[in-house]
C-alpha cells in the first residue's frame, strides 16, 4: 500500500493540495454553522427581549440608526445622484434613441429597484458601518467589557448585537429607498438635459406600470436582510473571540468578503423568486 511518506514529489503535492482544500471546505462549513447559530440566537433575543430594558437598549438602537443610517444620507444621496446620471440617464436616452421607450419602466425597475439599488446601498453601509462594527466590538471584546456585562447580568447579545441588527436592517431599507428615489430623479434630469422626448409624468407612469406589489415586498425583504447580514457578520467577527491589534485588519477584511458573498447568494435566491414567482 502506498502511504503519504513514500509518495513521489508530485503525488505528495497533490495530496497536500487536496488536504488544504478539504480543510478550507471544513472551515467554511464550520464558519457558516457558527454564523447561522449566531444569527438564530440574535433573532431569538430580539423577539424575546425587544421590550426588556427599553430605557437602556432603545436609545442604543437610535444611536446606531444615527451612525449607520442618518449619517450616511449625504453619501447615499451623492452616490444615488451619480448613479442616476451615469446609468439611468444613459439608459433612458439609449432606449429612446432605439424607439424602445416602452421598456424604460421595466428596465428601471429591474436595474434600480430589484438589483443595483439594494446592492449598492448594502455595499456602502457595509464599508462605512460594518467595518467600524468589527473594530468597535473587537475592542470591546479585547478590553473584557463583554465579561463585565455578563457579570452585571446584562446579556451581551441584547445590549451589543440586537441594537445593531435592528438599526442596520432599518437603515439599509431606508437608505436603499432614498437611493432609488434620488437615482430615478437624477436620471430623469440627465435624460431631460439630453432632450429625450419624455415627460416626467410619462416617465413616472411607466415606472408605475412596471412595478408590481411583489417588488415592494421583495425590496423591503431584501434590503432588511442585507442589513441583518452586515450586522450579524460584523458582530460575529467582532465578538467571537478577543482580537489582537494585528488581527483587526484581517478580520475586518474577512467580514467584508463574507458579507459580500452572502449578498450575492441572497441576490441569487431572490432572482429565482423573481423568475419563478
Amino acid at each position: 500500500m502506498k502511504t503519504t511518506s513514500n509518495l513521489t514529489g508530485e503525488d505528495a503535492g497533490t495530496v497536500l493540495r487536496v488536504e488544504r482544500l478539504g480543510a478550507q471546505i471544513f472551515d467554511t462549513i464550520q464558519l457558516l454553522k457558527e454564523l447561522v447559530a449566531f444569527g438564530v440566537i440574535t433573532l431569538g433575543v430580539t423577539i424575546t427581549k425587544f421590550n426588556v430594558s427599553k430605557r437602556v437598549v432603545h436609545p442604543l438602537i437610535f444611536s446606531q440608526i444615527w451612525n449607520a443610517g442618518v449619517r450616511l444620507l449625504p453619501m447615499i444621496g451623492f452616490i444615488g445622484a451619480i448613479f442616476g446620471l451615469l446609468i439611468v440617464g444613459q439608459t433612458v436616452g439609449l432606449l429612446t434613441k432605439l424607439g424602445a421607450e416602452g421598456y424604460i419602466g421595466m428596465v428601471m425597475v429591474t436595474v434600480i429597484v430589484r438589483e443595483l439599488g439594494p446592492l449598492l446601498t448594502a455595499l456602502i453601509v457595509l464599508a462605512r458601518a460594518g467595518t467600524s462594527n468589527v473594530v468597535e466590538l473587537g475592542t470591546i471584546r479585547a478590553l473584557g467589557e463583554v465579561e463585565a456585562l455578563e457579570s452585571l447580568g446584562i446579556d451581551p447579545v441584547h445590549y451589543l448585537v440586537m441594537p445593531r441588527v435592528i438599526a442596520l436592517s432599518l437603515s439599509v431599507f431606508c437608505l436603499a429607498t432614498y437611493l432609488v428615489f434620488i437615482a430615478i430623479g437624477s436620471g430623469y434630469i440627465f435624460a431631460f438635459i439630453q432632450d429625450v422626448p419624455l415627460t416626467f409624468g410619462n416617465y413616472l407612469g411607466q415606472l408605475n406600470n412596471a412595478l408590481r406589489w411583489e417588488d415592494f415586498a421583495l425590496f423591503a425583504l431584501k434590503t432588511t436582510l442585507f442589513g441583518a447580514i452586515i450586522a450579524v457578520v460584523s458582530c460575529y467577527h467582532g465578538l467571537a473571540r478577543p482580537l489582537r491589534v494585528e488581527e483587526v485588519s484581517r478580520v475586518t477584511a474577512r467580514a467584508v468578503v463574507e458579507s459580500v458573498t452572502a449578498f450575492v447568494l441572497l441576490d441569487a435566491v431572490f432572482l429565482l423568486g423573481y423568475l419563478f414567482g
Partner: protein
Amino acid sequence: MMTDATAKTKSDSIAIELAGVQVTHHADPSDAVVMRDVNWRIGAGEFWVVGGRPSSGKTSLLLTAAGLNRPAGGTLRIFGQDFSSAKERDREAWCRRIGFVFEQSGRLFSHLTVARNIALPLQYRQDSEEREIVARVEELLTQTQLRDYASYMPGQLGLGAQQRVGLARALASPIEVLFLDNPLSTLSLHEGRWWLDFLRQLHKNRLVDGKPLTIVASADDFRGWIGLANQFAVVEGGQFRVIGGREQVEGAAEPAVRELLTSEI
C-alpha cells in the same frame, strides 16, 4: 446527629460551594483546566482572601465561583442552586446578588461616562425610578471619592480611579457576595490603604440578613489582609488549599504561605 433544621441552617449559611470543581482558564477557548478538584465553601458573612503567585489561576477561580466561568467538572452551587442545571433566568438572578470587581482597570464600559457606568446595571434591571438611580449613583460616587469625575470617560482616569468606578458599579446592586480580583495589584500605598479601609467598613456596615457582606478577594500576597479577612486560602501548582483563619495563616510553616506573608523582596 445533625437535625433537618440544623442542616437547613447550615446550607442557608453557605453562599457558594465548589465540590471537586475543575477550573478552566477563563480566557482560553480550548477550556484548558488550570485547577483541579477545588473544594471550597464560602459561608455567608465571611471575608476570604485567596493568595497565590501571579498567573496561578486566581482570576479563573474567582470567575468560576462567581458563576462567570463554566467549570469543566465537579459541582458548583451558587445560593444553593446547581450551576449546571441553572437556567438563564437563574443566572441573571445570581448576577443581581453577586458583584465582581475586575483587576486593574475594572473593565469599565469605555463608551459611557463614570456616572453612566455605575448607573447601567440599575437602569438595565428596570426596577428603579430614574431619580432613585441618580440618588444611588451620587451616593456611590461620594463613597468612592469619585464625585468630581462623574462626567469623565474611563480613559481620562488613572487605573486606581478606574478600579474604584468598578467597585462602585459592583456595589450599585443589592449584592450579597462581592468578588474582588486582585484589587491591590496596581495601586500605590495610599490607594491600597484606602481600599483596605473601605472594605473593612463595607464588611462591617453592609449587612445582608443580619450578617456582614460576604467578600472574596484574591491577592498576590497576604500583607495588608491579615487584620482584615477571616478566611485564607492559597493557590499553588494548580491546587487550591484552604489554610484557615488568621492564626492558622500566621502559624503556617508551609513555604507557599510564608512567601505570601513576607514583606521582603
